């Protein structure tokens, strides 16, 4: 007899088991395919997450299928008429559920772990913790507990869906209690807020005993409820017992006058609300409770699981949205009630949108609750989808898409209870693909809404077939006709719509990306490839000669201690020391060997008029400091022209020149042009040197970029990796996609072209245009993860116009002075002698 009961329950559980195993396999295939787009640690974490998720989906669903489904079909009642003990019935269900759970865990482990190992050797700490012995034990206990709680609610509630929904807060409560217990065992305090240390053997034993005790308690509870459900006499309900009189009413009056006729839409909406409001309310309340709890925990510093709870909110809300979607057709699938519409030839359109009405309204309510309950409204309301964490925009995209998926699945899987579990199981595959898409293209994430529209369109198209429930048995047609008939099956069409929904945003965005890829500047590329870039000079051992740039390191000299002092505290000894160091720096081959750029900047800032009570240091010191800056600028530029220094080094030269020009102009404005000042001005790098060095540096950078490969590693570990340009990685997260690689290459060409144009000092209008274009290209090149407000090599390359004007002004003033000095010297030889001596 037991064998027969086991067989019967196994047949019942088969569909859910199959759905979960298909979900596992599908998830593994998807993850293996998309893992090249992720880094290894993330890929491992995702694999492990699905390894945990899928069997627990089975655990949560199987009690509702085995008990609730049988209750709905009336077969449980029929079983009770047979000479079979209630214990046998309950045991068979429990054994089948356990067996199925073990199969799911084994299948999940085999497929997902193997798949994970195929793509990565590295595991994140989370993954390693989960696949350790303790982790596996914890997960096994969690799954079994989840399953047992499922049986508790399945025996408690007649409606399988109510039983399913009741499990969610129950497992949350049990997990919370377990956490409190763990804290108490390990620390002696329930509200201990610090990190927990590894438990000792006795603490582990205590935890194990507590866990086992909890599981035994829940098992006993479900046993007791099974006895109550399977063994009791059906009597009057407690509510009727409360209200009963001694006898029933012998005569029931006939039907009262029917209410006035209403519109078709109104009655259909009324009917839909009536049949799904209670389940929708449970879903909403459960979601709201979870949000309240999670956001409430954030305020309790002692609860270290707050982050974990809160991080699961998107998953939880997604599940709630899927279930709200399932509600769309659930009520009419129940006992095949949709045939009511078929028998009367009602129109498809009005039935479709009225099915959607109430659950969609509940979805909107869920979003409103999120808006109200989220503690950080500014973060929630941000428009950009780049940053991590839940945003309202992201929530809308996720929830509407999940809802659309749920309602299509419910049409396709016509067993109403199974749809609640199969929905999340099958959602795994499209979720992985669309989430990856959203992380790669957050700027295009709104296109995912197309998926929702496609799925809603699909359900509208399939509503006619759903209502009429066409006969499933095919006739004896063979060959192509049979194939066509198979393709017309509602299930096949529903799956096709899901596939289309996944593909649509991918194809649209790919088309947009391809169509907006900059055109190839073939001739320009040829010229630039052919342009000679000086090879760096090296010593015989290959070490480059020009590695003498040390000036960006922080100061280690005597100046550093003066950073907090003002100019009036600068004594004569210190002045002389500064002068000595500056002169030594000018004489040195190494840039920054005696002073750093920080030192120079500090010196120059000491002279700013804003310092209270400060008198300017003598102009010699300032002038010498400025001269050092210009010397650095010249040398670096020359080294760039001779090869061996990069754009990054050139930025140093630009900055030095910029700071020097500002300081020189300040000195000129304060005290007018003097001969020493004019001498230093003459050391400002020429425009030709400036342009030439920039051109060569950028060219060299571009050529280095083009020599890089998109592929790193060898053999099995070869994968696409972003290339670098101007110190930034390009096509981050997208380098595995061919059209993105091509787009990145073209964008690098564009940005190089535009930066070179900016070097040539174009007119104001052109300058602005090039700058704007370059910024757009640069943003696209770096991708959405970087917040880009300015161009690379900014601001010095961009403000060339202002910088050039400043230098021109100084040079003109200096030249004027030199000319007038020459004239006077020609007139007075003694004055000429004096001026030479002073120089």
């Amino acid at each position, binding site marked *: 007899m037991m064998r027969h009961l086991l067989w019967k329950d196994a047949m019942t559980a088969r569909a859910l088991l199959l759905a979960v195993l298909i979900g596992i396999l599908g998830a593994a295939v998807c993850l293996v395919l998309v893992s090249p787009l992720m880094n290894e640690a993330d890929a491992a974490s995702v694999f492990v997450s699905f390894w945990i998720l899928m069997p627990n989906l089975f655990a949560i669903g199987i009690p509702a299928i085995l008990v609730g489904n049988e209750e709905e079909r009336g077969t449980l009642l029929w079983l009770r008429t047979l000479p079979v003990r209630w214990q046998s019935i309950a045991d068979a269900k429990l054994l089948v559920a356990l067996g199925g759970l073990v199969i799911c865990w084994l299948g999940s482990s085999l497929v997902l772990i193997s798949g994970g190992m195929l793509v990565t050797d590295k595991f994140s700490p989370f993954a390693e913790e989960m696949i350790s012995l303790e982790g596996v034990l914890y997960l096994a206990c969690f799954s079994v507990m989840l399953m047992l709680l499922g049986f508790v609610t399945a025996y408690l509630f007649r409606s399988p869906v109510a039983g399913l929904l009741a499990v969610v807060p129950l497992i949350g409560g049990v997990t919370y209690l377990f956490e409190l217990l763990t804290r108490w065992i390990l620390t002696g305090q329930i509200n201990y807020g610090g990190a927990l240390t590894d438990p000792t053997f006795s603490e582990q034993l205590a935890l194990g005993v507590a866990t086992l005790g909890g599981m035994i308690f829940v098992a006993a509870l479900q046993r007791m409820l099974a006895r109550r459900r399977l063994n009791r006499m059906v009597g009057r309900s407690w509510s009727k017992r409360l209200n009963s009189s001694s006898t029933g009413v012998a005569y029931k009056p*006939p*039907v009262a006058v*029917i209410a006035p*006729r209403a519109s078709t839409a109104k009655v259909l909406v009324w009917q839909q609300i009536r049949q799904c409001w209670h389940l929708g309310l449970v879903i909403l309340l459960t979601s709201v409770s979870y949000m309240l709890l999670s956001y409430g925990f954030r305020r309790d510093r002692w609860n270290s699981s707050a982050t974990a709870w809160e991080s699961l909110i998107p998953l939880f809300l997604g599940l709630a949205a899927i279930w709200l979607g399932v509600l769309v057709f659930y009520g009419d699938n129940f006992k095949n009630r949709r045939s009511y519409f*078929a*028998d*009367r*030839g009602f129109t498809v359109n009005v039935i479709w949108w009225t099915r959607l009405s109430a659950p969609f309204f509940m979805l909107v309510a869920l979003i409103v609750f999120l808006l109200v309950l989220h503690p950080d409204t500014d973060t929630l309301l941000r428009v950009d989808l780049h940053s991590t964490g839940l945003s309202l925009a992201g929530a809308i995209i996720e929830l509407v898409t999940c809802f659309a998926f749920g309602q299509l699945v419910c049409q396709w899987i016509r067993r109403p209870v199974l749809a609640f579990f199969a929905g999340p199981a099958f959602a795994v595959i499209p979720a992985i693909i669309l989430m990856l898409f959203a992380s790669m293209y957050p700027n295009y994430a709104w296109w995912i809404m197309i998926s929702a529209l496609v799925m809603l369109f699909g359900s509208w198209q399939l509503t006619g077939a759903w209502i009429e429930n*066409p*006969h499933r048995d095919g006739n004896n047609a063979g060959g192509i006709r049979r194939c066509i008939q198979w393709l017309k099956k509602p299930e096949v069409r529903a799956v096709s719509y899901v596939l289309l929904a996944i593909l649509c945003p991918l194809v649209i965005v790919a088309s947009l990306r391809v169509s907006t890829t900059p055109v190839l500047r073939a001739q320009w590329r040829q010229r630039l490839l052919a342009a000679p870039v000086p090879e760096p000079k090296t010593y015989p051992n290959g070490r480059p000669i020009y590695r003498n740039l040390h000036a960006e390191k922080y100061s280690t000299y005597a100046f550093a201690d003066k950073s907090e002092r003002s100019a009036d505290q600068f004594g004569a000894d210190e002045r002389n020391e500064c002068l000595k160091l500056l002169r030594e720096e000018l004489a040195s081959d190494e840039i920054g060997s005696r002073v750093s750029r920080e030192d120079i900047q500090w010196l120059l800032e000491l002279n700013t008029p804003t310092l209270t009570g400060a008198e300017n240091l003598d102009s010699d010191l300032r002038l010498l400091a400025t001269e050092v800056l210009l010397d650095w600028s010249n040398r670096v530029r020359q080294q760039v022209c001779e090869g061996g220094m990069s754009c990054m080094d050139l930025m140093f030269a630009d900055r030095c020149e910029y700071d020097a020009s500002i300081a020189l102009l300040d000195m000129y404005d304060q005290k007018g042009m003097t001969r020493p000042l004019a001498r230093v001005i003459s050391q400002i790098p020429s425009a030709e040197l400036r342009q030439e060095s920039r051109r060569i540096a950028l060219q060299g950078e571009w050529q280095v970029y083009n020599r890089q490969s998109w592929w790193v590693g060898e053999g099995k570990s070869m994968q696409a990796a972003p290339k670098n340009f101007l110190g930034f990685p390009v096509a981050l997260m997208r380098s595995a996609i061919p059209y993105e690689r091509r787009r990145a290459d073209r964008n690098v060409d564009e940005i190089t072209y535009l930066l070179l144009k900016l070097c040539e000092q174009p007119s104001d209008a052109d300058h602005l245009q090039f700058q704007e274009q370059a910024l757009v290209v640069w943003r696209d090149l770096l991708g959405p993860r970087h917040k880009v407000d300015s161009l690379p090599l900014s601001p010095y390359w961009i403000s060339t116009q202002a910088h050039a004007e400043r230098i021109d002004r100084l040079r003109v003033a200096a030249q004027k002075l030199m000319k007038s000095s020459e004239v006077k010297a020609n007139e007075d030889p003694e004055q000429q002698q004096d001026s030479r001596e002073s120089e």
Partner: protein
Amino acid sequence: MNQPVISLQNVSRSFRNTKALDAVSLEVPAGTVFALLGENGAGKTTLIRILTGFLKADEGSATVLGESCSKSGTAIRRKIGYVSDNPAMYEWMTAEQIGWFTSAFYEDGFSSRYYELVTGFDVPGGVKLKNMSKGQRAKVALALSTAHNPELLILDEPTSGLDPMVRRQFLESMVDLAALGRTVLLSSHQISEVERVADWVAILAQGQLKVVQPLEVLKNETSIVTATMDDSSATLPLPPGEVLTESQNARQMRWVVRGLPEDWRSVYAGDTGAIELKEETASLEEIFVAVCDPRANRPANDSDSVDSTMLKVN
């Protein structure tokens, strides 16, 4: 002559290797109660599902109220009243609620007619359908399908599982509808009840249409001839006419015969071995068994066999 309300021409339908309907042709005249009889699995429900557009015929054509069943199933179902063998209803609704709900899909007048019908059927008010008895639910289903005054009512085994009183009520309401000029197509295997109300009868057996005739004509034309023999081993000639079945029980031979002539006794005149001859009108049930029973003994006739000549359509 009125156009037939339902017309089938050589309709066939198979499910995998099973031929559910085999070249069925019939026409249902307007204003009649047309009974479609057949044992379980004969093809009645399949035929009805083809008429209501739920199934497509593999071959042949079918029309209802002038509309093609394969192309206009939804439109047909909107016009007719249809009660399936297991009508789907929203069991959480009461009779009033489901009447109000359904009234939105039909014209004005539905509510009042529905109210009359459920009151006449004594359907209790304020009780959810799931708490009603099977008979009460069947009455509600019938009321819903007739309250919009359809020209054609198709009922697929509507009295299955109902008590005799409810069955009688049902069937009498069919007669009332027919009297008002409506057409009722009723499928059943409750022969004795159908016999009381049907105007026309069609008998389906193993997917084939064996008989289509007005009931009275069919009964008048079919007789049961019983001959008592002097010896159980005697061989008697077949009576004249079309012998549908022959059976022997000790010294009695029994034939179900169609088209028995007035002078049929002359065949047994003389020393044929028959010592007693009786003739009686066959009931519909006897006709049905004679037509459908696969184990029945069907002697070869001079005229055509049962399989090909039973179809008589006026």
